């Protein structure tokens, strides 16, 4: 399936744009990866004695895989609500730059902030990666509708996966469980690498991986944030240096 050309009459209706967004979930392996990741989250929720409704609400209202895994794991291991909230807040910081970088792709000069609230809610790593891939092929004035369709499609896939995983939980062997957990780093690594077109992106990705184990040794509780800001700033420095030299 290829998206229609930018000047096609297909894009005249926002509902059509929504439908194209919905159909685009079939165009990425990340949909399969999300399905399997959320299969794992459903299974994890079951084994940690959360209800199915709880698992589905976490997907619907939190909509961030790493945060959901941290929340279930910490609460399940007896952490207080405050401790869990802090861990999740730190893990969720990465949503801030994602939203900041993805929303300008959808904005037109007349777009009001409230029109972007739902798109901001849908923003998580998969949508962030896919927006950078798909949105250049979508006319600017239809991008919000397209993203709503794409996001709703991905959420539906994950809710289905949660339900299936919840009921499969009793039957997942340890090796199969490990294989499902390994899918997350592999798929995120390769999908981000695939979208790294500029040198700064490659530097941020490589340094971010290499610096994390060093930052973790500091044991500050903000490891991810420390390695992320340092690696990202160095990557930005490389970008700036190349611009100045050019």
């Amino acid at each position, binding site marked *: 399936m290829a998206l229609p050309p930018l000047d096609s009459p297909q894009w005249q209706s926002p509902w059509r744009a929504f439908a194209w967004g919905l159909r685009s979930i079939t165009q990425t*392996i990340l949909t399969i*990866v999300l399905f399997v990741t959320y299969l794992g989250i459903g299974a994890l929720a079951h084994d940690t004695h959360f*209800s*199915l*409704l*709880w698992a589905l609400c*976490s997907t619907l*209202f*939190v909509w961030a895989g790493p*945060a959901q*895994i941290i929340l279930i794991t910490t609460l399940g291991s007896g952490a207080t*609500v405050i401790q*869990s*909230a802090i861990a*999740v*807040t730190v893990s*969720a910081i*990465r*949503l*801030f730059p*994602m*939203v900041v*970088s993805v*929303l*300008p*792709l959808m904005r037109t000069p007349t777009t009001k*902030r409230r029109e*972007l*609230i739902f798109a*901001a809610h849908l923003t998580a*790593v998969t949508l*962030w990666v896919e927006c950078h891939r798909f949105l250049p092929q979508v006319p600017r004035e239809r991008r919000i509708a397209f993203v709503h369709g794409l996001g709703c499609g991905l959420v539906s896939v994950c809710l289905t996966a949660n339900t299936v995983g919840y009921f499969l939980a009793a039957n997942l062997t*340890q*090796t199969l*469980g*490990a294989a499902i957990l*390994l*899918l*997350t*780093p*592999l798929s995120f*690594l*390769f999908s981000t690498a695939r979208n*790294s077109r500029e040198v700064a992106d490659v530097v*941020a*990705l490589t*340094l*971010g*991986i290499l*610096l*994390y184990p060093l930052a*973790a040794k500091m044991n500050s509780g903000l*490891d991810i944030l420390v*390695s992320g800001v*340092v*690696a*990202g*700033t160095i990557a*930005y420095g490389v*970008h700036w240096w190349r611009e100045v030299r050019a």
Partner: protein
Amino acid sequence: MSFAQAIGDWYALAVLFIAGVVPNQIWRMLGLWFGGGIDEGSELLVWVRAVATAILAGVIAQIVVEPPGALASVPDVLRYGAVAAGLVVFLLTRRSIFAGVVTGEVFMLAGKWWLG
């Protein structure tokens, strides 16, 4: 599973809201608030995108280095080897995500089977 079990208790749902929903939506809404005034090609955005990429890279490293749950049952060498093997195939296949993911998984599962 009964209907009541599927719903669970309301206390757990309140905890989900406080410790899960609010901490995530705060950052998204801050991004919405501050993102409005930032130009797409601005230098600040280049920096912000680099930091977002590096934070995601950190999460990837964290899952492999300090594996959660069932993944902890896989020896270090198999986890690192799976990522390395996947990366090599990903690069050889002109950046095929699918080939990279499948290779990493096969490496890990084969290694686990071979080690018993």
